[in-house]
């Protein structure tokens, strides 16, 4: 069965600095990887995904993520953080080689950008 680990419950970054939110995964087949963001009292919003192709994926709001097969990681990055990026971030994985396998989410990482 697939699984996702987000090793940091909380990440604090100064505004204007680069940010990284870490994610590692485990699947038996090909990984389909996703990042979602959740603002207070809101549902999850899709940021970006990796299915195949270029290991560097660009998404919404200036975010990008790098797929690393050897390290089974899919870290979320942004070159310059904004205070408005403060939110809860979820990494998720689906086993792409097994049809309709469900999407499994990590526990989430709370990102706080300090002015």
């Amino acid at each position, binding site marked *: 069965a697939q699984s996702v680990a987000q090793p940091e419950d909380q990440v604090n970054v100064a505004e204007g600095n680069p940010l990284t939110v870490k994610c590692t995964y485990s699947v038996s087949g090909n990984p389909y990887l996703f990042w979602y963001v959740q603002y207070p009292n809101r*549902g*999850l919003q899709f940021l970006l995904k990796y299915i195949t192709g270029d290991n560097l994926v660009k998404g919404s709001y200036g975010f990008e993520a790098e797929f690393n097969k050897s390290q089974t990681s899919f870290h979320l990055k942004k070159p310059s953080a904004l205070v408005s990026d403060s939110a809860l971030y979820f990494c998720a994985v689906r086993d792409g080689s097994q049809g309709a396998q469900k999407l499994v*989410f990590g*526990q*989430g990482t709370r990102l706080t950008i300090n002015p």
Partner: protein
Amino acid sequence: EAGVAQSPRYKIIEKRQSVAFWCNPISGHATLYWYQQILGQGPKLLIQFQNNGVVDDSQLPKDRFSAERLKGVDSTLKIQPAKLEDSAVYLCASSQGFSGGYEQYFGPGTRLTVT
């Protein structure tokens, strides 16, 4: 394009009572999901529909939870009777398809408190 609609947004009930949540997915999305998100955790899939058929309900506590999507559009999730541990946010999501890399679009959720 209208997003995923859910109602009610908040619900407070006593244990052993029943409750129902409603979801209307994005128009044209064939796949509908119900998730349970307990505070401090990532969303956990309860049930997945493809049109009006169930694709995955392996994590649905079937002794108390039920869901239907009779006409392949909107859906209802019911809990009867509720337990204290059912306190959570119930998220509905939809996607264009159920296989591979389709991203899911989430509604705002229903926050359930069981007292």
